[in-house]
């Protein structure tokens, strides 16, 4: 039976392929965590070469970029899901969103550099970095919003509109609350990606970190953790323990990614369960 032998062989090969993929991931995690976790001491954060400033900047820039991109991203997503008629205009917006999603991050970085660093003459700033990073977030936010709103059953809308609610009331009171778990998952996804972004920030937020701890001045330069890892690894300063800083920073980044991935699943599950419970009553 040749066909059966081929079938068995293929099955074994596919298992091996899958195992290889998982093995690569496990090798990655053990390598990074194994090398880096021992360096995650208080000295690593607060010492003279400590990364406290970078860690703060990472979250500060992430926060500002979300503040800038959420309203537009949600708005455009809501328009695409609820209002957009099938015509050339809608098609154009969809094409723009898809194109924006495919723009390499370094191109965003250079665009941000033209606009914020040179045209507005700000130099390297947290504000410029966040605004450029917001552009990277936008297309994902639009897509996620549209998908989660489309997943809301039609009957919900019809019931609300039939009761005499306006479209805006229906959105605010019915559709958005129902779509919330999906939206939160999407926002966490965006945040996780923005947190590790480097190419954009090198050209817009710069590679310097403020001397003042927890400096919230948006016009200061702000090096993030990911940029720091790049800087330390590609141009190690002589006289510093650059390798250990790199190991620790990589581990810290991976830990942040894992935490975000856990956050990705937990709140949406929790919200879904709560909503199901409410509906039963």
């Amino acid at each position, binding site marked *: 039976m040749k066909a059966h032998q081929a079938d068995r062989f293929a099955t074994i090969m596919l298992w091996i392929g*899958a195992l290889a993929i*998982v093995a690569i*991931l496990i090798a990655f995690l053990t390598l990074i965590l194994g090398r880096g976790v021992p360096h995650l001491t208080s000295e690593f954060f607060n010492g003279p070469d400590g990364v406290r400033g970078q860690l703060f900047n990472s979250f500060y820039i992430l926060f500002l970029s979300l503040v800038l991109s959420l309203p537009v991203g949600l708005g455009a997503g809501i328009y695409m899901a609820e209002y957009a008629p099938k015509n050339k205009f809608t098609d154009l917006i969809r094409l723009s969103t898809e194109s924006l999603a495919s723009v390499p991050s370094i*191109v965003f970085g250079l665009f941000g550099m033209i606009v914020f660093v040179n045209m507005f003459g700000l130099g390297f700033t947290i504000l410029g970095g966040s605004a450029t990073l917001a552009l990277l977030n936008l297309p994902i936010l639009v897509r996620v919003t549209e998908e989660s709103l489309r997943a809301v059953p039609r009957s919900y809308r019809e019931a609300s509109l039939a009761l005499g609610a306006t479209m805006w009331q229906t959105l605010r009171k019915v559709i958005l609350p129902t779509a919330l778990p999906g939206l939160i998952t999407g926002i966490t996804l965006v945040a996780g990606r923005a947190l*590790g972004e480097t190419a954009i920030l090198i*050209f817009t937020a710069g590679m310097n970190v403020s001397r003042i701890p927890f400096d919230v001045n948006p016009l200061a330069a702000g090096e993030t953790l990911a940029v720091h890892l790049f800087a330390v690894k590609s141009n190690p300063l002589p006289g510093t323990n650059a390798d250990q800083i790199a190991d620790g920073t990589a581990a810290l980044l991976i830990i942040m990614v894992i935490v975000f991935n856990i956050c990705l699943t937990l709140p949406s599950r929790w919200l879904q369960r709560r909503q199901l419970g409410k509906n039963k009553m």
Partner: protein
Amino acid sequence: MPQRKSWVYYNDRLSRYLFISSAVLVSLIILCIIWFVGMQGLSTFREVSIIEFFTSSKWSPDSGKFGALTFIAGSIGTTLIAILIGGPLGLAGAVFLAEIAPPWVRAFMRPATDLFAGIPSVVYGYVGITVIVGLTGKLTNSPTGYGMLAAGIVLAIMILPTVISLSEDALRSLPRTYKEASLALGATRWQTIRRVLVPAASPGILTAIILAMARAIGETMAVQMVIGNSPRFPDSLGSPTSTLTSNIVMEMGNTPFGSTWNNGLFMMAFILLIIALIMIILVRTASRKGAAR
């Protein structure tokens, strides 16, 4: 409509306009990016001939030589290596997840592949410097290991989640009847996968491969860290060279804004942007073909 237009009515109107304007803003942003990066990049050709830029591999801005062929070849080379390694592996993973994996394996493996996508690209570069460069050094008998092979391997791992999740979705969205008909005719599972499922899902799989290529060619940090950054034409897999992205990172900081050298770097970014836009159009045609069948 009520006789007296209340604030409820105006709120509804206002929110509608806000949503439309956000959608328009998204379109304006991509147009602005194309315009600004394009204008800055194309001004290179005021002083450099187009033919020189695309066909010469001599890049020494100090002596007025602006040939970007090395970087273009480097980008294409690394992307091809990444697809050759990551494409089949990712497709195998997708077929496995869609057709073979028991539910508990799938429940574990799907989030695991998503984790790949979440790892920041600098961390991939860091792993590349720490481990993969040593490996490729042995494979290619080169002293350092920096070069296209190292970059290609790192990229192959980075594109895995894209290939896996999109191909798996394509396989899963096929009607059950395809599989049932094939199995009922006495085909084995492998015959069904190879002759029925993969061909039927090919538009989706093609989309996955194209998007993975788009990601690979635009990837910057991971590549810059393992490519070696020498403006040398990539004539072997293990010798240091440069790509469009890595060269932008290397030289952008040293060049004054508006100089020919600087504009040349913007032109490289513009090439990347154009490639990305072409990819999107390809993806749209592929999925439209898929829908037409």
